[in-house]
């Protein structure tokens, strides 16, 4: 089995996001970037399939600027066999990403594609679903457990109010939820080995995909600030405040 994971370079989850003063987006200059945490879970799942013998090859794909190669290198250090970098400085919307991944699927013929359920920068939660539709594969989204055997995948999905277990035919697209696994630290010897692993470079044009934007961003603003809450002494005070201050009862 061949597994492909898609990974995105995003602002590190620890960074306090600042909106640009001209309201065109968020500040990324001198800001720490790292792999989207959901994608890290996808890589870890791929590495585990590789280690338990289910998969023979694990390919990590990233679409983005030159520095996205650092993110691919991290996936290689975690255990991916090789990388593919589709280089573009343009903003790529989920549909464009799905189309690029489709083009790569046609080239690489993987049996399973694993993606994070969403990226923590735009929180779209669309790419996996769009990809499955474009290639006509089964999809198992929000996976918290994944078992692959005999051309089928058993996916436990985190849904409102509980867990749903489905069985889908391969090839399939699976998107990861937080509880699927805990990603490993890349070990020092593997970091050194990752240096020598190959990364294929291509561009959207090479893959014949039009990535031009279909959405226009009008403006990006900070969420409005909220005043801190107060702790009331007792129910009487609460009722009083609801009546006289909030005037809701």
């Amino acid at each position, binding site marked *: 089995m061949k597994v492909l994971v898609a990974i995105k370079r995003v602002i590190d989850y620890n960074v306090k996001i600042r909106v640009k003063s001209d309201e065109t987006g968020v500040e990324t200059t001198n800001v720490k970037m790292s792999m989207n945490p959901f994608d890290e879970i996808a890589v870890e799942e791929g590495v585990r399939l590789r280690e338990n013998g289910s998969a023979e090859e694990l390919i990590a794909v990233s679409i983005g600027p030159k520095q996205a190669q650092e993110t691919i290198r991290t996936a290689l250090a975690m255990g991916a066999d090789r990388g593919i970098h589709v280089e573009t400085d343009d903003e790529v919307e989920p549909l464009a990403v799905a189309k690029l991944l489709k083009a790569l699927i046609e080239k690489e013929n993987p049996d399973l594609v694993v993606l994070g359920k969403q990226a923590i920068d735009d929180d779209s939660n669309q790419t996996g679903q769009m990809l499955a539709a474009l290639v006509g594969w089964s999809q198992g989204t929000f996976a918290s457990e994944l078992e692959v055997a005999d051309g089928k995948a058993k996916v436990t999905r985190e849904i409102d109010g509980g867990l749903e277990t489905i069985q889908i035919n391969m090839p399939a697209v699976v998107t990861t939820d937080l509880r699927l696994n805990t990603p*490993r630290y*890349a*070990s*020092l010897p593997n*970091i*050194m080995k990752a240096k020598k692993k190959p990364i294929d470079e291509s561009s959207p044009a090479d893959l014949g995909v039009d990535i031009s934007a279909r959405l226009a961003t009008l403006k990006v603003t900070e969420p409005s600030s909220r005043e801190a809450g107060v702790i009331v002494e007792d129910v009487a005070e609460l009722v009083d405040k609801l009546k006289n201050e909030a005037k809701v009862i």
Partner: protein
Amino acid sequence: MNFELPEELKMLKETLRRFVDNELIPIERETLDGAKLKPESEKWLNEKAVELGLWQFDVPEEHGGLGLGLLAKTVVWTELNRSIALPTRLPEIFGGASPILYNLNETQQERYLKPVLDGKLKTAFAQTEADAGSDPAAMRTSAVRDGDHYVLNGSKRFISNALGADFFQVIAVTDKEKAQRGGISTILVDADAPGVTLLREQELITDDKPWEILFEDVKVPAENLVGKEGDGFKLAQSWISTGRIRHAARGMGIITRCLEMATTYANDRVTFGEKLADRQAVQWMLVDMYTHLHQLSLMVYHAAAKYDRGEDIRNEAFMCKVFGDTKSFEAADNCMQIHGGLGLTKELPIERFWRDQRSMIITEGPTEVLKMALARQVLKEYG
């Protein structure tokens, strides 16, 4: 000219930063018993070190280690020292064998080095004496050849890890006339040899409790001599520079943590209606830490990269140790000042950084001695 770390070392730094943030800092006040790891912490850390591929990272390739260059080691030293979870002297898990042991001949390696790397034997390095800290010419402990033995007499003090050590690497005078020009040798002495006495434990400002050791007519087999007679000082010199870089790399880790803690606290703490972060006195302290960290990083990475190219870094190592130890102490001191009373408590790691870094300005070459040695080089170069 490239001032950036190579990509793989950046990744190593990132990984270790995350490891320290997620796994060491949350438990950093619970891992130690005095200067040593608690047994359960040691077991846990051993597993983590294997997982990270850092187990005995310090060991040369020919002895089963990773064969890392000095630049890579500085990254590890810096990141692991951002937390006080580990002993100030990193435990053997990371390959704590003193570099002298890699200079042993094959028979000696079988008997002494291998068991140390396997964790079966413990060892301590014994150089300092009451009247000879930095000045080897004043050393008194003597080893006199008598047939197939040396007879060892004298005393050593401030010997870390002496308690529980199975053997000592003793620096002794074999020729008084020649002193540091070929009169000093290194000899391996079994701790249970008759005439070896652990005299007394010394309580220090740090958690480390070194010992004073007495040698009285200790008979040591001549084959326990390391290298040739008179090589002792030369051997010590060959790794002393990398030891100084290690001091500076540790300082980088400590300044980083102090900067993180001090900025966070300065942003939160309000006094007389104003945030500490808005006060110039505090701002200047933070800016100094930031600048010193930048200076030190450039110095350390430059020196380490130069060493890895096979060049001499004697002068760079003097500068790195002096600058690294003094500026990291200053950072700990200012971080403590910014935290006020909280900075004095044992709830925060600042007091340990402060005690450790104060001691580092004296340990393994006090600032004044290193400056004296560097001055000789400067006078030669520009005089």
